């Protein structure tokens, strides 16, 4: 999909002024946050599990080549095929090639963020295939022709009324107004598609090196119908989603649902190991896994390697005050929120994404809930540092920082300037000690006053007390 991250500020302002979005985001996120907190409080093992999950991910990354080779052999031994894609274009071409070879017409899809990342739907539709998203949230935004605004709840920004409008336009009336009726309508419309599908495409939460299994974790069962009923099952997954053994799978199953939706478990966890076998009466005739690199291997061994631990649970965005205020679309690409503010600059480049690492208050809530303990605020700070070094940050800001540095490196001058500023601001603050306008900081004082300093600097008070 196109990158609209350069328009983050405009989109954030529009989002903040949108009452429908406020309503949708407010209701939903509170649910995720509260349910997670309840479950975590009830599980004394949770912090130990997070440590172990972090360690297993680090272990996998240190040995990624080995585990990928093992996974490849195990899939092949089970009768499946592994395809390696260096970038988005190669991933699209592999999938287009399979669809062409099997003369596909209808393609059903379970939720896959990697397929969003490589912009798969547009490529398939351009070749004339009928592409049907089957996850209810993805189906809603496909009808709305919008990208997902959350990695596990793609239509979190839509209200029930908006869904009613979309369904009425797509399916014809009568208009459904209750959640139950809307879900039933989607169920009936999509049933047909599963049985008609030639190719079913799903994501992969985990790829098990030991067994060659790909795993999806879902609540709706759409991914299972997609992969069971289509003639060909294609899994799209990032190369970092490998776990070594089934024992490691247990570990991640214990933290994923709790962190993501605040459930003890999602409804369905399915391990797919190869295609239909002799004697089987159902299941796909072909099983393919497309391993997508698309910039991931370049993150290895560097300052952003920790980000490759991400298990795409969405806890960071559920707890992020900035995401909670502006929603997912403002971020302008596939991955929103804190994890997206790290990934987007790394995947699409620092230049087009200046605002993302800066739209963060460094409050640290994301890191405090991340199940694999990714130091998200540190990574965002590192991105800011790189923006500065590469001269991407705005000239005014760079000049101001230059001035500050000049002064800060000269303690005498610094203390003098501090004393001067403290007194000047005190007198500007007037009788009630509040500043209503500040030069160069109009944005800050537009919505609130700044308390004025008391007139003496910290060092002055310190020396006075010692004397």
């Amino acid at each position, binding site marked *: 999909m196109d990158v609209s991250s350069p328009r983050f500020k405009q989109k954030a302002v529009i989002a903040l002024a949108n009452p429908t979005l406020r309503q949708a985001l407010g*209701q*939903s996120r509170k*649910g*995720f946050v509260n349910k997670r907190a309840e479950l975590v409080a009830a599980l004394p*093992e949770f912090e*130990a*599990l997070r440590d*172990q999950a972090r360690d*297993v991910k680090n272990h996998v990354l240190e*040995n990624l*080549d080995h585990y990928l*080779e*093992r996974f*490849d052999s195990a899939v092949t031994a089970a009768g499946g095929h592994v395809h*390696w894609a*260096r970038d988005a274009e190669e991933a699209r071409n592999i999938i287009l090639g399979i669809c062409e070879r099997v003369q596909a017409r209808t393609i059903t899809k379970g939720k896959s963020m990697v397929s969003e990342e490589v912009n798969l739907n547009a490529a398939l539709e351009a070749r004339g295939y009928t592409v049907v998203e089957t996850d*209810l*949230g993805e189906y*809603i935004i496909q009808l709305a022709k919008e990208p997902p605004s959350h990695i596990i*709840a*793609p*239509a979190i920004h*839509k209200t*029930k009324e908006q869904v009613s409008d979309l369904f009425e336009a797509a399916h014809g009336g009568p208009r459904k107004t209750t*959640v*139950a009726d809307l879900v039933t309508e989607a*169920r009936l419309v999509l049933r047909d598609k599963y*049985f008609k599908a030639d190719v079913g495409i799903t994501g992969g939460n985990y790829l098990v090196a030991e067994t060659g299994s790909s795993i999806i974790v879902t609540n*709706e*069962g*759409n991914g*299972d*119908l997609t992969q069971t009923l289509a003639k060909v099952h294609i899994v799209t997954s990032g190369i970092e989603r490998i776990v*070594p*053994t*089934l*024992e*490691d799978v*247990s*570990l991640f199953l*214990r933290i994923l649902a709790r962190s993501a*939706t605040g459930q*003890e*478990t*999602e*409804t*369905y*966890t*399915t*391990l797919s*190991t190869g295609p*239909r*076998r002799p004697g*089987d*009466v159902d*299941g796909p005739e072909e099983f393919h896994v497309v391993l997508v*690199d698309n910039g991931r*291997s370049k993150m*290895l*061994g560097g300052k952003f390697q920790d980000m490759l631990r991400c298990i795409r649970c969405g806890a960071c965005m559920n707890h992020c005050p900035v995401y909670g205020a502006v929603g997912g679309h403002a971020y302008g690409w596939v991955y929103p929120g804190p994890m997206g503010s790290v990934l987007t600059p790394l995947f699409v480049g620092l230049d087009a994404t200046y605002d993302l690492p800066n739209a963060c208050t460094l409050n640290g809530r994301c890191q405090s809930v991340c199940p694999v303990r990714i130091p998200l605020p540190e990574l965002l700070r590192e991105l800011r540092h790189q923006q500065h070094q590469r001269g991407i940050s705005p000239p005014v800001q760079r000049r101001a920082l230059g001035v500050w540095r000049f002064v800060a490196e000269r303690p005498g001058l610094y203390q003098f300037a501090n004393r001067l500023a403290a007194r000047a601001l005190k007198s500007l603050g007037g009788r009630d000690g509040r500043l209503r306008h500040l030069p160069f900081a109009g944005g800050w004082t537009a919505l609130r006053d700044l308390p004025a300093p008391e007139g003496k600097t910290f060092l002055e008070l310190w020396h006075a007390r010692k004397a």
Partner: protein
Amino acid sequence: MPDSRSAILRQIRTALGRGPLSDSAAAALDARRPAHTRIAFDEDLVERFVARFESRSGTVARVSRLDAIPAAVAAYRQAHGLPPRAAVARPLAGLPWPAGFAHHPGPAGPDEQMSVTPCLAGIAEIGSLMLASGPDSPTTLNFVPDHHLIVLPAGHIVRHFEDAWTLLRALPGGLPRATNIISGPSRTGDVELTIQLGAHGPRSVHVLLVEDGPAAGG
């Protein structure tokens, strides 16, 4: 076309600052069998399974013996106003089904309303069922019908995921094509995070817990 597999592996090794692992290092990784923290609980396995499964809107009926299954299925069918037919997995075909009850071993087609299947295990930790696909347990029976009835002998309930993996690895053909861990009826929260059952898979998942008697279906 250059080989993408080699290119990606080369890039990974360059980033990690090393060449391919030595045979002994690779063998050590292959032998790794981690023992991660498991969730501790004191409850009886059966009670834990039932409580967790029911907490997600799954339902459980206890039957004393395997040959009481047909009567339990009939009771469920009548309670839900379902016609006397179902997809019944092969290992259960030999039960004393009443005359007039039509059943076939699958696959389940779009009009299938009910299925009855065995399972490989119950997992007490979270109250989930593990089903292994094969000619005796077609996957469509687990997802297509509105009503999925699962026969679970109490002795098949294991404590943790890890115990279930042991059963899975011990299957004659190794891991089945599809391993389905099912924790209740299909659900969605995609419209305003309001939980709604029956999104795409079964609207109702009903466990027939066999408290005594021989093991069924694997």
